[in-house]
């Protein structure tokens, strides 16, 4: 009895309509929220979540007030699958609907996979610069690099979210403990005691003579957080001192532990590639007599040591490079036109929307024709 009612509930068209309308409200509210929260944060709160929470300012508690994107997406998926399983009956005038909904399921699943597995990063190359890694566009990491061997550096990267928890961090490859004393997710540095800044008081490195300040998280699309942290390096023999690490500091800070040389740097998270790209030429074309951009293109040299692949590639607007499971897009450029910024996406599910699109379009045409033709035939007769 209960099961029957459950089945009836999950297979009902009423549920579909309710879910669709809730999705409509969610998407609308999420779009409005993007204005204040920024695209990234609004996405996390509205679309990549099970619930949208409300809490009074500065309160420690929050209550769910509206279903989030994940919940609605899953409910729709469940509704869709349940309805089709329970009512499966093969008939000619339903074929179109079946194909449409199969495509929809594929689309939703594909996007879920993208959400979970896709990694987006960026590669910023100046003229003739070469890199074998791309960088996250907003997440930082603390790189503790063993630089004893000049030929081979070994990096232990500590992600930002671990730093944010503060406390001691251990890694088998490191003969010491990295102890995070303070962490500011977004910060400003100053060389003097400007208002609102406090002295860092780092015992070693650049931080000895700097002041810092915690600032609110960035919401604008075109700016990002610049975190800073105060860390202590503790060997079994005792503390080596404290360092200020910050995304504002471009140079790594060296130190020695256990007779080996190390460096510390808080930088954008890196994703290493099995090949390198060198920027040969970036081109920014404009329409004659204007500054309206006509095209952006980057000519690059691709070099892959393990297969000896060595060739030039060209990336331009609407024409990405797909290579080694990653796709490189022309995303942006330096104001002086001497550097390019490529968007690097690794998305195992990238093909699903294409397949879904074909399925759904086919389904819609089939469905449409199967209704239109009899309708027109009937009219002709009458």
């Amino acid at each position, binding site marked *: 009895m209960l099961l029957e009612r459950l089945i009836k509930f999950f297979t009902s068209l009423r549920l579909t*309509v309710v879910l669709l309308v809730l999705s*409509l409200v969610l998407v609308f509210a999420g779009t409005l929220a993007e*204005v204040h929260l920024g695209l990234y944060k609004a996405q996390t709160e509205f*679309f990549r979540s099970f619930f949208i929470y409300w809490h009074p300012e500065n309160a420690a508690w929050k209550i769910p007030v509206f279903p989030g994107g994940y919940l609605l997406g899953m409910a729709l998926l469940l509704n869709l699958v349940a309805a089709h399983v329970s009512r499966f009956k093969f008939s000619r005038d339903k074929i179109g609907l079946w194909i449409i909904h199969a495509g929809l399921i594929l689309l939703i699943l594909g996007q879920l996979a993208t959400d979970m597995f896709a990694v987006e990063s960026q590669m910023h190359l100046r003229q003739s610069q070469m890199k074998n890694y791309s960088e996250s566009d907003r997440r930082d990491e603390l790189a503790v690099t063993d630089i004893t061997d000049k030929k081979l550096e070994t990096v232990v990267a500590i992600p930002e979210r671990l730093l944010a928890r503060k406390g001691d961090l251990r890694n088998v490859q490191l003969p010491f403990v990295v102890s995070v004393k303070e962490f500011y997710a977004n910060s400003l540095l100053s060389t003097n005691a400007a208002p609102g800044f406090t002295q860092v008081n780092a015992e070693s490195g650049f931080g000895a003579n700097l002041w810092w300040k915690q600032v609110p998280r960035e919401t604008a699309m075109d700016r990002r957080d610049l975190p800073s942290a105060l860390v202590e390096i503790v060997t079994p023999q005792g503390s080596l001192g404290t360092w200020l690490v910050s995304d504002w500091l471009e140079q790594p800070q060296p130190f020695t532990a256990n007779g080996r040389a190390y460096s510390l740097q808080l930088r954008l998270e890196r994703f290493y590639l099995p090949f390198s790209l060198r920027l040969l030429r970036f081109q920014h074309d404009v329409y*004659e007599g204007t500054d309206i951009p006509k095209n952006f293109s980057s000519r690059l040299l691709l070099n892959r040591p393990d297969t000896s692949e060595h060739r030039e590639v060209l990336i331009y607007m609407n024409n990405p490079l797909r290579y080694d499971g990653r796709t490189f897009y022309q995303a942006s450029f330096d104001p002086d036109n001497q550097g390019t910024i490529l968007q690097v996406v690794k998305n195992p599910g990238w093909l699903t*929307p294409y397949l879904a699109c074909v399925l759904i*379009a086919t389904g819609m045409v089939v469905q449409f024709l199967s209704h239109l033709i009899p309708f027109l035939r009937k009219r002709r007769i009458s």
Partner: protein
Amino acid sequence: MKKFVPWILVAVFAAWVLSTLHHPPETGFHARDFGRLPVLLGGRVQPFDSVARNTLLQIRERQSVGEMSATAWLMETMMDPDRADRRDVFRIDNLELLNLLQLPERQKYYSFSQIQPHLDDISKQAQRINNVEDTSRTAFERQLLKLANALEVYQRLKLSLCPPGTTDFAGQLAAYEQAIPAGVAAAQAREAGKSYDQAAFNRLIDFLSSYNDLSKFSYPLVVPPAPDAKSRADWQNIGQSLMNVVHGGEFVPAVKAYAAMATAYNQNQPAAFNQALDDYRRWLGEWFVPETRQGVQEFFFNEFQPFYQAIVIYVTAFLLAVIALLTFAFAPKLSETLRCSAFWLVVLGGVIHTFGLVFRMWLEGRPPVTNLYSSAIFIGWGCVMLGIILERVFAVGLGSAVASFAGFVTLIIAHNLSMDGDTMEMLRAVLDTNFWLATHVVVVTLGYASTFMAGLLGVTYVLLGLFTPLLKYKSGDMELGKVLTKMAYGIVCFAALFSFTGTVLGGIWADQSWGRFWGWDPKENGALLIVLWNAAILHARWGGLIRERGLMNMVIFGNIVTSWSWFGVNMLGIGLHSYGFMDAAFWWLLAFVLSQVGLILLGLLPPGMWRSSQTPPRSAAP
């Protein structure tokens, strides 16, 4: 007799349309011929006429200055700037701005001479405002910035053909030509540290500094590239061309021709002006065939104004269709004549609309939708085509009524969107792809059009049902209410098909150019809203949750959703798609949304209050 009425009407309107193509030969200065000359502006070859019209739209919000045509105004501005300065061409409405400039209120249009004493003030304010973010500018700040831009364009136009204060440019060129050898020799001697002819040097420097101004500030590029130049896009302005002469270049025919025209214009000698103009056109016709053709064709298009004519025809058709509906019950024969007339007028309007649309595509070499302006034209076109189909299937006059209504409203919206300047502007890098413009943009815009069309049918249903007994009247064997429902349902199916396919195609384009199928960008979200809403309508209908009235109220809400994603999201000023930011339109959008909410509330009134449910079904058949 009555059979011929529709044909007579259509013939009259067609004759009117064709009559606008006829122009009596020009006396005095041949401004129309001048208007056809090709120049390069905004990265594309266009006739002077387009430069003139688009500039006037920007500064005066009109395509003419009273009786004076746009090109005639442009000629005056470029060749006799002192007189042009006294013409009232700058439109200023904002009171705070008028007070700042100490201008009299309620004059609407102001002349450059009136504004000139405050130029410094304006540029200082504009500099400050430029650093304020778009979204947080006040009405005063936006108006001031708009005026500052208008003034800049105007001042650049004045420096586009001849140096300031020149009444005999041709004579001045001859003097320049003579001054070059001695001047160059003096400059070389000076460089080498030898003694040199100071007077000759100064003479040349005087010329060059005034040409330098021209080369820096000129607005359109009027000098075509040398016939053997590498790139056909390599146009120059007069200043650049004249400065090249010192470096061993030559006086190109275009410069000489324009100088002769300017002199003749200044000395009020139409015959000499027309002669110089004809000579230059002949020379262009020899070397620059495609550019000349482009100029002539675009001039024709500007002058023909097909969308304006379509508006007039649609309005007439709409009135006829409404009268046909209202007389449906008591004068069926008259009603049928009017219905036929309305239908064929809609077809005529549609033909002219299509002509304009296709002509634009041909001029641009692009699919129909490239910016907000052309999306309005295309949505209107889509609605009209759907309406014509509806009218063919259900011959009750409803299709014609909604088609003509959608036609003229969207064309009026398009007209207002054209105020921003060139509607055939070049496309920014990521949009520069005919493939995706032809697929994603066209399909998703058809989705907008069909959702609006369904919404309009809903509005018709509510209005007719509440205030008239018509919904119960029978046409053939079906009540009008049923007919409307069938139409709306069919169109919603269409809308779901187009908006969904269009949205997914957009995702694929985004995957191609930005690396993500879906980025929750406001414009993407807007399209998704339409898809979700159409899907909700269809499922509610299939599930029996709504019947006639429910369907109609839901399709009216579709109007709100579509207007949000067409205009609303552009007002947020964020995201990758915000290609058409606007502010004044916000109040219009709000008013539209409120009106639709009002209609839905009316639609929710209990059936007892509907006039259509108080009358028993009856047939209109005699």
